[in-house]
């Protein structure tokens, strides 16, 4: 029986992290910003049917960057978690915090125990109700979780995008129009090309909607909002 090669744990983690980062950096980016009436999510996504942003529950949205099959699985698991919890207890007991924790656990376990880490970055957003603040959680491939304020970015060029948003984002009274213009400008800025509205996937969590707050904004409507 051949002896297995010895690899130090440090080296192994480093290799895995590098592998995951490389996979994610190939993907396109997604931005979430808080605006006056809720949260706006914008993804650089040329496909009109393969979504990167989706609804999880009444006031919770999900978006994933990186490998589609992997974050699609996580999205479905999130919906199952949320629907089961809402069915067992009550709709108001489903929270982004618990969901983000679940994702963090899953990603952390896979990162440390499986041979191949997941090449994904996840964003969980919840629009605050009755005076409570919005919540934005970013979960990276190794399960580390970040509680973001104002805006959050995941995917390929996230550092450059964060730099841009840090400079240009102003929380005070940001309208949907201004928010959308900001996100599209940020994405154009880092890709150095004009992005048509058809190439953007846009969705909102609107605080004042009754029931389910998640809504997709199709290109025709986004054009209307921007004019």
């Amino acid at each position, binding site marked *: 029986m051949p002896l297995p090669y010895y690899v130090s744990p440090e080296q192994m983690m480093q290799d895995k992290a590098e592998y995951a980062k490389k996979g994610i950096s190939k993907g396109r980016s997604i931005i979430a910003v808080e605006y006056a009436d809720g949260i706006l999510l914008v993804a650089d996504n040329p496909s009109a049917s393969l979504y990167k942003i989706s609804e999880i529950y009444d006031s919770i949205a999900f978006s994933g960057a990186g490998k589609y099959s992997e974050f699609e*699985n996580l999205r479905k698991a999130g919906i199952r978690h949320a629907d089961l919890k809402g069915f067992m207890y009550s709709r108001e007991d489903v929270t982004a915090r618990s969901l983000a924790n679940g994702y963090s656990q899953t990603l952390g376990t896979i990162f440390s125990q499986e041979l191949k880490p997941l090449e994904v970055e996840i964003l969980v957003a919840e629009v605050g109700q009755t005076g409570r603040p919005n919540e934005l959680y970013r979960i990276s491939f190794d399960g580390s979780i970040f509680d973001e304020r104002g805006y959050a970015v995941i995917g390929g060029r996230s550092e450059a995008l964060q730099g841009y948003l840090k400079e240009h984002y102003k929380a005070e009274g940001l309208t949907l129009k201004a928010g959308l213009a900001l996100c599209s400008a940020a994405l154009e800025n880092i890709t150095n090309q004009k992005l048509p509205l058809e190439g953007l996937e846009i969705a909102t969590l609107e605080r004042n909607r009754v029931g389910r707050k998640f809504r997709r904004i199709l290109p025709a409507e986004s054009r209307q909002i921007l004019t």
Partner: protein
Amino acid sequence: MSSSRTLSDHDDSSFFDYLLHRRPDLVPGNRDWNGTANPLWDPNRPHQIPQPPHGTTVLALKYREGVVIAGDRRATEGFQIAGRQMEKVFKIDGYSAMAIAGTAGPAIEMVKLFQTELEHYEKLEGVQLSYEGKANKLGQMIKANLPMVFHGLIVIPIYVGYDHRRRDGRIFKYDITGGRYEESEYHAIGSGGKDARSTMREHYRKNLSEDETLKLALLSLYNAAEEDVGTGGPDLIRGIYPTAKVVNATGITDVEDQRVAMLYAELIAERKQEG
């Protein structure tokens, strides 16, 4: 997240199946009561255990643009009135509603499960189920409740909705085995169902307007309440009226209490004149 999963492991968009797999204890009708039968239950003497509340009469009628669905508010426990304000007509999703008769507990549980089921599917798949698909799924859920029927816990719904493909309202009735049957005009179930149906048979015409249909629905419930002890009529003293919803191409709207109260005032005035 093992690598050996195939398509058949991934195509499951049903919350009901997920629940059956993960938390079978939460599935209505799935409790393992056989073998260790409920010691209180004796089919020969059903009156010995306290009866759970029962919902009574609900009905649905098609009209020009869709469907009207309505129900009285009474819940009974044997010969006692268990509740005067029970809600028996439920919005299921944006374009369908369900009304229940039978044992209130499991019925309301089934409503909640069915609402979750449809929302779950929509979120996972990114599109809504077809109306036909929704109606079939409900049939499977009623079938799963069959073991409970032998314990006297019967749930029977009417399911109505707007079918965008056919551009028409639709009414489905069910039996205890999950059998699903479409009604082309109207239907009523529950203890006063027969009485409500005879009123509807008398007055129903095709292509009624929304107002006419609503009035006929309320008249049928009124007549059912006169004939059947289990059905509650309009309670003028407490201001409790039957509830109704209208389903059409634009979605579901609740009929406000005020409008129901007004229609009842008209009906009662007509009765007084006749008498």
